[in-house]
């Protein structure tokens, strides 16, 4: 039971990270109907930007707590802004010129952009793993391991709390943004009917760009969380995280924001429980198999709407 609780905590943490990335996929898919294959690599760029900023600001575990939190908030904001520029640039160069082209074209440029981003980071930052010393090391002990000390000690670390809390706050703000602001309204309009929206005075190109900007900045948050949680990044983390986050988006129902978050949580939980109870080696196989199974038996996902085929 204790072991289960520990896996549950770890799974929710991981799921929050996947959920944040998945939002980028689901929004882009909702609005222009393409898989932004480079999104995983934007996440990777985000975590690198965060890492560089942390090292540049000289943040270590020795920094006083209050200062540490302020500095991390600064890192978060700057990383979000800079990663958003990356997301915007990828859209501008690789996707916008192909709007209205045949279906496979943007998918292929997306693969190209993904390869280019990965190798750009490999060239500019080196291929080595970048380990970061843990900034928060404390944790709450939820169980004491039983009277004889033989039981399992369940830890809820500060960093896990930080990740989940930040995700919840961001999700709240983001839902507000989509539901109650002009930007969100024009975005939903473009999602429903791009041509009609443009006739009604919505700047479609700008709305799509902003979608990429939002997706990229959420991915950079996920990048920072990933960095703080695992303490190591390299130029290849984007591929796996990207495919899993896409799986999460599909599982939750592509195009649906709460679905992306739910899917992220489920994928995080499945992956942790699988590694906890079965085998660590095959955890990726578990995630990929879920993707295939969901797509085959439930293509609209948990919270998505079935797609109507139009001629």
């Amino acid at each position, binding site marked *: 039971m204790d072991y289960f609780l520990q896996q549950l905590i770890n799974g929710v943490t991981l799921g929050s990270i996947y959920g944040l990335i998945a939002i980028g996929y689901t929004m882009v898919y909702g609005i222009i109907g393409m898989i932004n294959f480079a999104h995983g690599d934007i996440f990777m760029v985000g975590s690198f930007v965060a890492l560089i900023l942390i090292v540049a600001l000289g943040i270590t575990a020795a920094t006083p707590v209050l200062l540490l939190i302020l500095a991390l908030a600064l890192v978060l904001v700057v990383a979000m802004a800079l990663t958003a520029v990356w997301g915007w640039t990828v859209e501008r160069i690789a996707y916008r010129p*192909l709007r209205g082209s045949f279906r496979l074209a943007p998918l292929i440029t997306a693969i190209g952009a993904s390869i*280019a981003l990965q190798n750009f980071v490999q*060239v500019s930052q080196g291929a080595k793993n970048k380990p970061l010393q843990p900034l928060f090391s404390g944790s709450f002990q939820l169980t004491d391991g039983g009277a004889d000390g033989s039981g399992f000690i369940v830890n809820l670390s500060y960093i896990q709390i930080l990740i989940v809390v930040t995700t919840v706050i961001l999700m709240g703000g983001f839902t507000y943004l989509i539901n109650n602001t002009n930007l969100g309204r024009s975005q939903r309009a473009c999602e429903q009917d791009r041509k009609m929206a443009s006739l009604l005075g919505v700047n479609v190109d700008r709305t799509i760009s902003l979608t990429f900007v939002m997706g990229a900045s959420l991915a950079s948050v996920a990048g920072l969380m990933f960095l703080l949680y695992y303490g190591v990044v390299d130029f290849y983390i984007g591929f796996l995280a990207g495919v899993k986050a896409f799986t999460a988006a599909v599982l939750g129902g592509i195009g649906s924001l709460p679905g992306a978050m739910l899917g992220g949580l489920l994928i995080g939980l499945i992956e942790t429980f699988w590694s906890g109870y079965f085998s660590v080696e095959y955890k990726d196989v578990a995630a990929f198999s879920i993707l295939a199974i969901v797509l085959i038996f439930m293509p609209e996902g948990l919270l998505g709407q079935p797609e109507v085929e139009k001629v």
Partner: protein
Amino acid sequence: MQARQKDSLLVASVKDSLGAAVITFALACVMIGLRVDVASGRGAELFLEHRWLAVAVAVLVVFAGRLAMNIFFWKREDPPSLNLSGLMPKGGLGAGSSNIIKYGLLGLAVVLPFVLMFWLGARGSRQYIDLAILVLTYVMLGWGLNIVVGLAGLLDLGYVAFYAVGAYSYALLAHYFGFSFWLCLPLAGILAAFWGIILGFPVLRLRGDYLAIVTLAFGEIIRVVLLNWYQFTGGPDGLSGIPRPSFFGLEFTRGEGGFASFFGLDYSSIHRIIFLYYLIFAMALFTNFVTMRLRRMPIGRAWEALREDEIACRALGINTTNTKLTAFALGAMFAGFAGSFFATRQGFISPESFTFLESAIILAIVVLGGLGSQIGVVIAAIVMIGGFEFFREFEEYRMLVFGMIMVVIMVWKPRGLISSRTPSVALSRNAKGISADLVQEGHG
């Protein structure tokens, strides 16, 4: 009046270029300007290396380049029509020039090893023949994938999985049962096709881009299984000592009973290389032959129709699932053949040879060569694989450039760089027959 307009255009150009420069700065300031590295010796401490000069260069280059493009091309009253596609023959390569290229390449491929042998000698030519074998392997893979992507219009991002199935089938059959290459070659193809059917059957109902992701996932699953099933596949160590193929029972060995002594030649290791060259050449030609024949059969016509418009196909009573499945299985079969050739050529295989990148390279060959065009695949494979070898010294940068080129070419010519294949049969122009994706592109 005119001068003022010119001025405002100039101002607009400078403004636009400044904007691009600012964005470049935002992109580069952290990712290029600072490099985080692990200090050696002092534990795992991270330190930063500053490279502000590189950022300045990047910003200046973008500013100057953008400004020049603005002034000379984009922001003029009379923008010169830079119709680069005018450089290409209209409608891809015409029948005449296409035939010349086709037979020219074919003739060259037939005599290539001997030309190289005469020119450079057995020792010097070996690396070039090796390269030619590599190019032909990719040509064969490209032709195989062309059936799936180019003809049937199914985007398969996990094609390398079938290549891996072929390679591992041969390696494992040889390892556990001692089967020979010639017995395993058809078996590997059949097994790969079988896998294609197993994987294809559930997923082929999905629409284009979902299919892409699921095939990608399957490709990764197969790789992860090969990597982790240590007892059976050797895991990351791979399988080595894979037997070499024989020439009608003659081994390429020194001494009695070998290929050289049977034909009264002096033994040389180049014989085997040349044999491998002709082997893959024949296999690639076989792939091409089958594809060309199938394209004229009802099934091939159905593939092309499916690529153009799936809904119309269903309305006409074509069984889309079976049609897709045959394309998928045939493509997989050729990948299986190529895989077992790869295994026998290398003598050693490991999961590292079957990463997603490999799928992306094969896909790039097909797409950049022009979806559905057979000759386009050949030219793209020569340029791309040859280019990779040529720029081997720039190991780090070549994949970066590869990714960028993929984007640029796709943006510039979405229908493929070299030529594109229109459906084998179409309504005549008078009947206003316009292919569906031209309509989607806005030409219709």
